[in-house]
């Protein structure tokens, strides 16, 4: 079953990993920054998404490190994940392009339409 929609958190997780491997906390901060503060991933949600993305082959574990006594697991984007992210980015860009074109046409129509008489 092909699925065209990608949820926003998933999109930002993949986008966060596009410029290199990151650990969980790094992904959360990056997703928040990329979404201008709109998306603040909860840790449970993040790991559920990472589990699913790993099962789909879009993300892979990329090593563990211990920092200040805490385990940090790194994740990286796979080629399939990069392709999926590219397809979704293109879809969103096309949507935005179409909407912008329509808005321009609407603005032109409103500008040239005769103004209704006011009572």
């Amino acid at each position, binding site marked *: 079953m092909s699925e065209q929609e990608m949820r926003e958190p998933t999109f930002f997780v993949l986008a966060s990993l596009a410029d290199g491997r990151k650990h969980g906390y790094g992904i959360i*901060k990056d997703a928040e920054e990329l979404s201008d503060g709109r998306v603040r991933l909860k840790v449970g949600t993040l790991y559920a998404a990472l589990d699913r993305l790993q*099962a789909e082959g879009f993300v892979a574990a990329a090593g563990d490190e211990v920092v200040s006594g*805490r385990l940090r697991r790194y994740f990286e984007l796979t080629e399939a994940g990069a392709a999926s992210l590219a397809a979704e980015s293109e879809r969103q860009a096309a949507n935005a392009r179409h909407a912008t074109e329509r808005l321009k046409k609407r603005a032109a129509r409103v500008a040239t339409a005769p103004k209704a008489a006011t009572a």
Partner: protein
Amino acid sequence: MSDLENRYRSALRWYPKEWRAANVDAMVGTLLDVAEDDKRTRPARGELADLRASALASRLGPLGRIPVPVRDRATALAFGLGVGIAITALIATAVQAKTTTPSLLRLEPVVGPFIGYSFLFYGMWILAFVAAIIGRKWAARSLAIASILVAIALRFAADDLLFAAPTTTTIVFVGILALMSFIGNPFATRRGRARIAVSAASWALFMGFTLWYQSVTQGGQAGRTDWFVGPLWLWLYWVVPFALILALVLMRLLHSGWGGAIMILLVPIAPFVVFGWSPRAEDAINRGVALAIAIAIICVAYCIPRIFGLRIRITRS
């Protein structure tokens, strides 16, 4: 080990053992990193509930691997069905009290316009719907689950089992719908909430129409002027074959996520339709015919193309 870490590790015990062995330390590390960034020494509001919900979701196994948009749609359909049943039942019991004539079954309003106290059960679903529409995911889910506890309490307390409380079958069926509100999250987006509203309105219209039709045809034949409200879920039997056709077309030909969502919804509906109790023989016949059609549809969709090597594909230009 700090108190905060202890609380996180305690919540993470809800995950399956194998998952914990592989991931719990990395997840605790991330949780502590986030807490440190927030300058917290206690879990954030709702954080432990989110961890437990994620843990339960991970225990769902294959269901957890169903794409999120499909699960969201299935939840919207199931939650809407629960609300649709509540709306129909509330209206039907109020109308029934007004239109009934003294007969073998004397139907007197007990509270307001309602017969019996089952309005408490259905009323909680209406509140759950309101919570869902304003985006209160946990309030919506909690009210739906709490309604089942209320229904069970009514069942034990009722002295007139026919109308004072929902039937056991209805409680189990609606309880499954309440649990299905956890498999997806349509509450978070405006589109998801609109889907819940459309689903609820559609189910209510469908069931309202079938009840009205039943009262006109069978009530009239029996010489009664009142509305006969049978088990509402029973009227879903004719939905099954049509829903199956729709789901297969959406899944196999149009590759739409709605096909999977309908299939998920059919999982709890089908057994109730097939095995649900009804006092009337024609229900059994109708259900048998509906079941036969459903099996025939599955054969047409899966067996015949394989036997003859057919492959149908619709592509968008």
